[in-house]
């Protein structure tokens, strides 16, 4: 599958390099005419100090220039994006296209199709989005993730090759040196020993994320949060014995002071790590590394924690799929209010054409990147321009994480290409031989009835469980109440929800991409 995708990529790149005058060929409307689409896209938090509307970003200006389609943006602030979308849906004045639909629409974009807000793109793709259609039908595995059974609810970001893990527990080399520690921890016992040393040195060892769920630590107990599967049997993570052991570990860490007392309402974590107040946290590796470079310290990446050094882990989620549906901005749905669906489909498809891919992944040729020896290279403006923060520039010149077809991060992510070391640290431990995604549950497609059942049950269960997990961790609810907690979850009709997901999963494996 990888090979096939790569081949396709190469073909496309070759196409893009052929000197055809594509200025006219990619216009979506006849020369001299313009069309307008409305797009909902939350203003990225890194960019909102600099622009008020995405039309000010060169990426979108160029996009308008080459496609001839003008975009009217609705740019709510990122902290109110979900409320904004829900109010828009309630009002009926919904923009044509919703960017980041899978994350912003509670339940995911497919639920939006079921609810009637978004449209099923399946009838349009073959005719109006041939590039996207050929990518998602190129491989059964891609098709299963990108389409929801017989429906396609959104354009999703597709990678030519799965991304190496981008978040790990990070450490400061200087901290380890001052403690006389020479190697990064491998097992949970190693971590505890390190935490003891940190505590003795006055460092708060670990900032757990605010939800209390850390998949890397759960993974050591062979369990994942929410739904996962074991040998084809769908399970719900938060009632498993493995999850109880995870909570026991985290609770004991909290009691011993390993975990910051502030983890639930944490803020300024990056600076706390930089100043050495906390020892470790789960963080995008390269961001932490480059942060360290600018502050004059060295960041170390770590392998996934294990119970024993030779434990085989099965939880990995990063390499499980080349379809990136959960990344911010990576899914784009078309709403039922859209008057010109073919145009909206063609506009979204443009980023899967060679020209569009180049623009989304690299920016504007000659301004943001150049091709040297047949290889694209960013120009310095990609890292430093007009005081805009690094992450902001990724949404300014190009469209980072957009729904497009892309090489993985090692090929075209500006943060990694800043230095060879930045790329190297991202790839460190990536070749972990004792790791697979055996218990990962892919993005299965529930049918309308199953989806309605799942959503109505899981809304309540999620609320209850999220609250209980935090209570177990901080100890306001003793773990001796575990059994009654499990009984409560089960009494909320958990089994019906599991059955719905199981049915979908059973169908999932048989889904084959349509062949022409």
């Amino acid at each position, binding site marked *: 599958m990888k090979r096939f995708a790569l081949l396709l990529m190469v073909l496309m790149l070759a196409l893009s390099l052929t000197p055809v005058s594509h200025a006219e060929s990619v216009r979506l409307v006849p020369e001299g005419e313009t069309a307008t689409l409305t797009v*909902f896209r939350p*203003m990225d*938090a*890194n960019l*909102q*100090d*600099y*622009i*008020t*509307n995405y039309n000010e970003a060169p990426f979108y200006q160029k996009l308008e220039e080459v496609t001839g389609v003008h975009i009217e943006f*609705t*740019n*709510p*602030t*990122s*902290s*109110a994006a979900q*409320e*904004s979308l829900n*109010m*828009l849906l*309630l*009002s*009926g*004045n919904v923009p044509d296209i919703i960017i980041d639909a899978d994350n912003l629409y509670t339940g995911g974009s497919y639920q939006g199709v079921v609810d009637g807000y978004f449209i099923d793109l399946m009838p349009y793709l073959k005719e109006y989005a041939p590039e996207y259609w050929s990518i998602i039908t190129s491989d059964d595995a891609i098709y299963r993730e990108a389409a929801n059974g017989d429906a396609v609810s959104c354009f999703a970001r597709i990678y030519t090759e799965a991304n190496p893990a981008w*978040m790990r527990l990070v450490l400061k080399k200087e901290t380890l040196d001052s403690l006389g520690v020479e190697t990064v921890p491998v097992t949970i016992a190693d971590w505890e020993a390190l935490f003891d040393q940190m505590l003795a040195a006055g460092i708060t060892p670990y*900032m757990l*994320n*605010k939800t209390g769920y850390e998949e890397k630590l759960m993974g050591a107990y062979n369990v994942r949060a929410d739904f996962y599967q074991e040998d084809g049997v769908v399970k719900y993570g938060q009632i498993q014995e493995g999850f109880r052991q995870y909570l026991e570990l985290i609770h004991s860490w909290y009691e011993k002071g390993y975990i910051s007392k502030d983890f639930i309402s*944490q*803020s*300024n*974590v*990056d*600076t706390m790590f*930089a*100043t050495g107040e906390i020892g470790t*946290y*789960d*963080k*995008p590796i*390269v*961001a*932490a*590394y*480059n*942060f360290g470079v*600018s*502050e004059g310290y060295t960041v170390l990446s770590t392998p996934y924690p294990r119970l024993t050094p030779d434990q085989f882990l099965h939880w990995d989620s990063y390499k499980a799929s080349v379809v990136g549906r959960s990344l911010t901005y990576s899914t784009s749905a078309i709403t039922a209010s859209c008057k010109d669906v073919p145009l909206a489909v063609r506009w979204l498809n443009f980023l899967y054409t060679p020209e569009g891919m180049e623009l989304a992944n690299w920016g504007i040729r000659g301004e943001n990147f150049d091709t040297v020896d047949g290889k694209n290279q960013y120009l310095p403006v990609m890292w430093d321009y007009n005081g805009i*923060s*690094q*992450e902001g520039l990724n949404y300014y010149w190009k469209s980072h994480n957009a729904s497009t077809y892309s090489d993985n991060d090692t090929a075209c992510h500006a*943060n990694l290409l800043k230095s060879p070391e930045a790329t190297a640290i991202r790839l460190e431990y990536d070749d972990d031989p004792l790791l697979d995604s055996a218990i990962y549950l892919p993005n299965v497609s529930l049918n309308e009835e199953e989806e309605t059942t799942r959503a109505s049950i899981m809304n309540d269960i999620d609320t209850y469980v999220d609250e209980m997990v935090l209570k177990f961790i901080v100890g306001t609810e003793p773990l001796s109440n575990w059994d009654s907690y499990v009984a409560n979850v089960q009494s909320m009709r958990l089994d019906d929800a599991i059955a719905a997901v199981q049915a979908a999963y059973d169908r999932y494996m048989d889904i084959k991409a349509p062949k022409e």
Partner: protein
Amino acid sequence: MIERRNFGQKCLTALNYAFITAFSLVCLYPLLHVLFASFSDPILLIRHRGLMLGPQGFSLRGYETVFRNPNILQGYGNTMFYVIVGTTINMILTPLGAYALSRQGWPFRKFFVFMFVFTMYFSVGIVPSFMLVKSLGMLDSRWAIILPTAVNTWNLIVMRTAFAGVPNELQESAYLDGASDLRILVQIYMPVTKATMAVMVLFYVVEHWNEWFHSMIYLTNNRYYPLQLFVRDILLFDGAGGTTEDAAAIYLKELTKYSVIIVAIVPILTVYPFVQKYFVKGVMLGSVKG
């Protein structure tokens, strides 16, 4: 006997002063804390813990960032619009209603009082209100922020009480001179109760200045967002798990949080000393009886 009593009284007085002084320091400190922090050096600020009794280092970079932010400037403009236009509408409608209610003897008066007061305790909730604003065609327009708050019932009642205290003779002699009710309101009632009017203006200005929730749900277009919504965004920004890797940018973001607070409260704090002298005179809420 008398001596002892005097001594006791003095102790009480001293105790009273000490307590009130301590309490007002508690009221004041958080504001000073923000003020000092906003002028601090970003890196020293990050490292600082505990009481802050002066800026940590000195830098204006927080303010530079705030004033360079196009959203903040736009938000300032919008907020000014909401404050000026909104308060003007408030101060037209509220006196009209208050005057009518302050007059006695006209039929159905109690019915209207009840109609107004009822709304203070019964609200239909967010979703129905939203649907109402939508059906009025005001979504995503400035009117959605101004019109739904055109009269504040509490202020209406305060003003009515103030009007009721205006001596009857003034009004009667004006009637004899052939003045209309509107003229009596504008030329007699409002000037006589100018302390209350000043306080009312302040109440409404503060209300518009601090408003953010209606803006969040009624506006999806950030072109109309008020300052507070951007302030909220900056204050809630959390770099954790974020991919921003520019250390200076993150430190600056922390500093900016304080600067933006100052930028958001200073205008309103500078208005209020001018109105403060009217407070005690202006808020004679002896009774809110209808």
